[in-house]
């Protein structure tokens, strides 16, 4: 029995997404930026699961699994990039990523 309106979940997901966007916009540590991206992906997942529940289709949950997998791959590659930047610069700031310029 779902007593809560769907808008409760959508509002929560929106809030989390917006917090993630804020982190990407104002933070200078690329690791925190990555965490904010994770937060945004999670808010998307919450929305998928909520819609899956309220519409009665399980597909949303399956998509959420795929999103989690993609997030794991993205984090692995992103952290590897950060580590290799760190090995060159001895510190990490988002501005240091400009060494990836071609």
């Amino acid at each position, binding site marked *: 029995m779902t007593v809560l309106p769907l808008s409760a979940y959508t509002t929560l997901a929106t809030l989390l997404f917006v917090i993630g966007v804020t982190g990407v916009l104002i933070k200078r540590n690329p690791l925190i930026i990555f965490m904010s991206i994770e937060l945004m992906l999670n808010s998307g997942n919450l929305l998928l699961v909520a819609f899956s529940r309220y519409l009665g289709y399980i597909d949303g949950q399956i998509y959420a699994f795929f999103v989690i997998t993609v997030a794991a791959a993205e984090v692995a590659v992103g952290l590897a990039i950060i*580590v290799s930047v760190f090995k060159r610069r001895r510190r990490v700031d988002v501005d240091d990523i400009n060494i990836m310029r071609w």
Partner: protein
Amino acid sequence: MIVSILIFAVLATVAVAAAVMMLAARNPVRSALFLVVTFVCLAGLYLMLSAPLLAMVQILVYAGAIMVLFLFVLMFFFEPGAEVHPRSVLKGQHAAAGVLVIVLFFLIVFALSSFSITSFSGRLPAQGGRVAAMRGPGAPPPQGFQGGSPFDVRVNPVPNRTQGVAGEQINPLLVGREMFNSHLLAFELTSLLLLAAIIGVVVLVRLDKAEPKTFIDEEEAE
């Protein structure tokens, strides 16, 4: 009833508060731990949305694997407090970000509020009249929705998508069956993606034998 509202309120509040604290924390390790709190709260919400398998995967993969990876990198490469380089913060960056983010929030809320579930019922296949059954007062309550507890593991059976789901109430079974029937190609492509990610990581962090271990930055060398 009131219990599930209460649980939702607590979980949502803690999730949002921890997310805000993640941004407010000075120490990145604390940020990571606050993010773990948010993820655990989201897992609780998945339980409320009768997705127990996803809740477990959320805790295992996000809190267990991804955040541990973050913490490893943080603890190997960052000294607390030393990584803040306040040079070249754009002028008015925070203010502009705040304004834009508030605009974005109301934009998304507006976009989602113009959407109602009933507007979907016309687009769902005829057999999937579950939505109409949910809404219609005279319709018999659809199976899977009668659970009184907010934590019931039963999920709405997929309407007519897979045969023989009528009696099944176990979510992991349903998820697995659906994943390996309708989404098999995506599943296999995901394994390719993971393989590509593994290879990419190995190539990226490989120690180059030609370079000395402590590589001096080109700019500093000049």
